């Protein structure tokens, strides 16, 4: 079903000319279909689906998560510049879709490990912004009690944050890896 909503802006109307009314019409759909590139198969009968449907609720949920991550990362950037966050601070503002999209495709019981750009994944794996920022600022309310810092955040079924480049590749046994 399509809902057509009409918004009338009276303020704009008075600014333009008396008597004329600006009408903005917005069309909402409840879901959207996306096409996924077909991938080559090796020893499989059928591969992953080639279309997917994003519902309105999911879309809003992902958007909210991405916005939260964005604002958290921008704040961390500011804190880093003020030297309240020390050492290393690898941010993912601009790359929120990676962590949110990945979380959308897996279950909370799947295992995840990543490299040093871990704040977004820590959030999507279930930790709160408060715990993440407390960890970054070295407070004992942080997820690692302030002892780990930016790259060493852990959660249930989330094995961090690795400071050594490439370490996550070798550790990934039956984890989902990014």
């Amino acid at each position, binding site marked *: 079903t399509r809902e057509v909503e009409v918004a009338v802006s009276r303020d704009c109307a008075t600014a333009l000319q008396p008597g004329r009314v600006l009408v903005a019409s917005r069309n909402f759909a409840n879901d959207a279909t996306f096409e996924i590139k077909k991938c080559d198969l090796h020893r499989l009968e059928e591969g992953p689906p080639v279309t997917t449907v994003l519902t309105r609720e999911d879309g809003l949920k992902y958007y909210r998560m991405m916005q939260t991550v964005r604002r958290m990362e921008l704040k961390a950037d500011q804190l880093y510049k003020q030297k309240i966050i*020390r*050492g*290393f601070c690898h941010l993912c503002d601009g790359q929120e879709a990676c962590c949110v999209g990945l979380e959308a495709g897996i279950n909370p019981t799947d295992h995840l490990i990543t490299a040093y750009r871990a704040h977004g994944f820590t959030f999507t794996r279930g930790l709160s912004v408060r715990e993440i920022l407390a*960890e970054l600022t*070295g*407070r*004992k309310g942080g997820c*690692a009690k*302030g*002892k*780990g*810092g*930016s*790259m*060493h955040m852990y959660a249930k079924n989330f094995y961090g944050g*690795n*400071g*050594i*480049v*490439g370490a996550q590749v070798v550790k990934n046994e039956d984890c989902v890896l990014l």
Partner: protein
Amino acid sequence: MAAVSGLVRRPLREVSGLLKRRFHWTAPAALQVTVRDAINQGMDEELERDEKVFLLGEEVAQYDGAYKVSRGLWKKYGDKRIIDTPISEMGFAGIAVGAAMAGLRPICEFMTFNFSMQAIDQVINSAAKTYYMSGGLQSVPIVFRGPNGASAGVAAQHSQCFAAWYGHCPGLKVVSPWNSEDAKGLIKSAIRDNNPVVVLENELMYGVPFEFPPEAQSKDFLIPIGKAKIERQGTHITVVSHSRPVGHCLEAAAVLSKEGVECEVINMRTIRPMDMETIEASVMKTNHLVTVEGGWPQFGVGAEICARIMEGPAFNFLDAPAVRVTGADVPMPYAKILEDNSIPQVKDIIFAIKKTLNI
């Protein structure tokens, strides 16, 4: 003849007043050089002296070095001598060891020694053991260098001190400079040495300027590997240290000398082969010993010094058990207050000295 000599002598007597004038000569203002520039100079001079020497590592060429230690070298020597490598320590350390075996003299830079753990197999099994395993046939004239130990706020995986780990292995020489003079002399000796040498620098010392004595400005200034330096003479207690804690020991000594305690501060300079003669002679003079290091206590540099003192003649001269001041026995925490308390501070050194002297 006499007339001629009279002719010569009179003018000389008249000019003798002029000849007596002396020109005043003042010593030049002391040259202040940072540790970073000292290492840069040392590498530059060695690269110039021997064309077999080359530097490889992450970001050493176009970026001028992750900590700007190799600034200007790529512009001067080009792609063939200063080589940027991919982020694969195991890969490029292996390449460097192979090059050393084939006759070149590589300087392999690790961005920090924490990453050398990825390549430690190459350092130990391929470089350190080879001269012995081959019965003296194959030498590996390689230098592994980079910052070691704690930095500021870089947490557990980037703050480990490797002095004890590398010092454990026969076949390796391990040096740990403190000031600029040490840094330049030791890096030059390391490059000229035909053995694998690990040079443990310190990131927090890179920007610190020190007075550079005139002999250190020469292109052939070498500090012998295996010789410690007594930085401060003293009579009451011997304080042995390496790398950045040497500065803390000197500060502690300055504080204590106001209370009448004269500390003899020894800068080890070399971890392996350790200069036990200097340390023993000092302990035999002062009868007390405190060792200070940034690494973990168990199986550390301090532990080795204490063991060797006990095995040698200096044991009979000790009036009190030797005390080790080390980093805390935990992975380096991130929070500032925890980090500051995990490395030896001046107050910890003063406390240990007073405890040893029973004051």
